[in-house]
């Protein structure tokens, strides 16, 4: 097992290097740079030119890449020009927010998806199943941003049940119980929005999985032996169907990151996705690079996680 993990990590390290190269090459093609936004009648072009030279914006991408690698070796991801602070500090501030949002979303996804999937699978072709299936159809077809906008409008503004932006109430002392509650409150609506749309694939998958398993021989045997229906479902069917879902947990991370980009934008939630979009617009390359890499690493770790779970769950899939 450990051999496998080490091997996988070895395989993935070139991926990270490729990714970082790709980002630098792409960045060199992007028009403008972090100083473009400063253009105005009160700013002298000479000052901008001077800063460009100083900050190395004029260097070709491979020189910038070399400097960047040198920085990494010294444990620094560089400084954000726009935020005037170290990239790692900046990203840390935001990653934490995105992490909580993702966590809450994942919890909701499974809290909603598992019961619905099980119900729908167990009582398939009943009215209940049709209702649930109907929901998954709508969920499948609704773009998350429309859903988010409408949810914010209705529950945030019209009903006023949830805060409408930010990650915490202004002025709450960091670390207090109040602070944690406020954080949580700010997570509910965006988290639910992601989950209600994101969970439909889990529901559908679980449903078809259960319907499939129901007809498998070992279930029929268990029934024949007189096991109670409840026992059959809890012990056999559910356990069998849930395992692959656990295995896809890692891949879920990639999807969540994509989903948070939209939701953070709508709910003005200061997370990574929002930081990425801003940094692209203002060409804060150090941040863009770091974020793309970080997300890439997250995806790699997620995939690794999935493979490990999968191998634990299903001995048929051997790890070489």
């Amino acid at each position, binding site marked *: 097992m450990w051999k496998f993990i080490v091997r996988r990590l070895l395989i993935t390290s070139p991926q990270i290097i490729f990714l970082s190269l790709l980002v630098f090459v792409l960045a060199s093609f992007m028009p403008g740079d972090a100083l473009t936004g400063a253009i105005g009648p009160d700013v002298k072009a000479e*000052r901008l030119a001077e800063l460009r030279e100083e900050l190395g914006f004029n260097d070709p991408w491979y020189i910038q890449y070399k400097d960047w690698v040198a920085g990494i070796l010294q444990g620094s991801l560089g400084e954000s020009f726009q935020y005037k602070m170290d990239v790692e500090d900046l990203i840390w501030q935001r990653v934490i927010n995105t992490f909580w949002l993702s966590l809450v979303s994942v919890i909701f996804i499974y809290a909603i998806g598992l019961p619905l999937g099980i119900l729908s699978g167990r009582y398939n072709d009943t009215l209940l199943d049709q209702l649930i299936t109907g929901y998954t159809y709508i969920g499948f077809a609704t773009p998350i941003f429309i859903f988010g906008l409408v949810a914010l409008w209705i529950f945030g503004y019209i009903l006023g049940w949830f805060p409408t932006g930010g990650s915490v109430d202004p*002025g709450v002392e960091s670390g207090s119980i109040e602070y944690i509650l406020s954080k949580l409150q700010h997570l509910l609506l965006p988290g639910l929005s992601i989950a209600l749309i994101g969970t439909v694939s889990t529901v559908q998958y679980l449903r078809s999985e259960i319907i499939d398993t129901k007809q498998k021989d070992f279930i029929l045997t268990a029934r024949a032996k007189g096991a109670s229906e409840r026992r059959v479902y809890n012990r056999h069917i559910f356990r069998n169907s849930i395992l692959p879902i656990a295995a896809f947990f890692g891949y879920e991370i990639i999807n969540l990151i994509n989903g948070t980009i939209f939701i953070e934008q709508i709910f003005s939630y200061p997370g990574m996705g929002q*930081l990425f979009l801003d940094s692209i*617009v203002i060409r804060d390359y150090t941040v863009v690079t770091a974020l793309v890499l970080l997300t890439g690493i997250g995806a790699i770790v997620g995939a690794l996680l999935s493979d490990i779970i999968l191998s634990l769950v299903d001995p048929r899939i051997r790890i070489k």
Partner: protein
Amino acid sequence: MSKSLFGKFLFVLMLAFVLLIAACNSDEGGEDSSDNDGDDTEQNESDDDDSDSDSDSDQELYSIDDFESYTGEGDAIDGGSLTFGLVSQSPFEGTLNWQFYSGNPDSQVLSWFDESLLQYDENYNVTNEGAASYEVNEEDSSITFTIEDDVKWHDGEEVTAEDWAYSYEVIMHPDYDGVRGSSAGFAYLEGAQEYKAGEADSISGIEIEGEKTITFNYTELTPSLLTGGVWGYPMAKHVFEDIPVEDMASSPEVREEPIGFGPYKVENVVPGESVTYSKFEDYWRGEPNLDEVTLKVVSPSNVANALETGDVDLVDSFPADQVVDNIDMPNVQWLGMTDLAYTYIGFKLGDWNADEGEVNYKGDEMKMGDKKLRKAMWYAVDNETVGERFYNGLRWNGTTLIPPSHPAWHDDSIETPTYDEDKANELLDDAGYKDTNDDGYRETPDGEELVINFASMDSSDLSEPLANYYIQAWDKVGLNVQKLDGRLHEFNSFYDKVGQTGEDDPNVDVFMGAWSVGYDVDPSGLYGRDALFNFTRWANEENDELLAEGLSEEAFDTEYRQDVYSQWQELMVEEVPVFPTLYRAMMVPANERVVNYDISVGSGVYLYELGVTQEEPVVE
């Protein structure tokens, strides 16, 4: 197999919905006419309909003259708290120091707790109303400032001349990496360049004459110094002295516990999201009215809802394309002032000579080189209609390159081209631009195809409709104008194309962008011969002379300077390297309970007077 009945039902429902939408439309017209009398006739006339028979509420016209910049004086309650919405799609950067901040969001956060020692009047001239007063010593080209006695930092320390000098030393420090330090106050300051190059330990031109008195010695005096040129923000030396300059911007003293001497002090910063302030009782003008101010970021798509529900009382700005939709919001009063900005259309008339550091005007070689062609393009566009229809009058036809936000300098007596298709055609015919091959478009006087490439900045929801509208207008007078690359350009790529680094994209012929103008009216940063941001690359001797005269010592005489700038505005109308399209109103909504607040400069109403008339925001 799932033969989902419900799925089927749902699908049919959806189908029905779509059909319904399609089918409803014929009824829709009828239904709508109840609140929209004469809907059908209105449709039919809509093309030539300028009159007010157009009763659609969307098309009501407003004018900046209908709005005050002042909420009015009211019975403010003692204390109270207020929520200020910072309208921004992104979090604020959190560089909470005037020396280091880089964007408008941060400056909004800053202005609650720190201010300039200098106060300006409505023409953006320095007055003696601020925390410091000035005296010009013409014989030795210096200005002496004296800070009021009771001006104190939030920690109780006095704001001293040394603090002011310190901010200069930080900005001119070789390790400083912000964009400030090029305004007249630095450029003309004696010894500043030596200090910056590391050749001197201090700036020789700054003399500290006492705890509260400071003199700046300049190489020469220019009126720009007193119209925004002098850097008026002190920096608390006792707080920052031990921090190396390169670490200042990321220090907690800037980001988490910033200090200032403004009416409110920072209590708590949630990075990027919100700031809470409490009143600073020892504020030098007097004790502020409110106990507490909360600032939070609100995204442009939520701000209208936030105001309506009382979630925020006041905002820094309001998205221009949403103003009219919300102007009838019952619990809100709208404040307005002429914005310090204008939209323009410019013509490429040369390129940048990097060696000389000046524009290389080559009018005759360029596609847009003919003055008549440029003028015809001005005549061809109907900016009045654009302002009325797209902005309901809250943007209006621009005339000269100094906007009316600077009333002392804007010359409204100058005759400028306004929409006149015949005139445009006439000018083009005159100049020899005729359709010689009957393709519906005019050819150049030499008989070659004329395709004009138009680069337009994508800056708001309406950028694309506007760009298309202008192209249609030019099409009508027979000019074949095409969007460069077939799309709009976001600001990075726009400025790259028009030449922010001196490498102009040769494909750009015409471009549309916007400038915000500073307090200082001097246009040489945008239109001077040696200005890189003079994207048209146009220059002539008269222009050089006028711009120089506007900065000369004689120009301290306001009338003289006014005359110079009137001549300059007229010259630009005559030569048309650029023409302004729209001036704009800045509209700021405030909850009904907000009083004693003024958004304009030089009104004599100060932030510490701001108050509320009741504890809770007015809703509905």
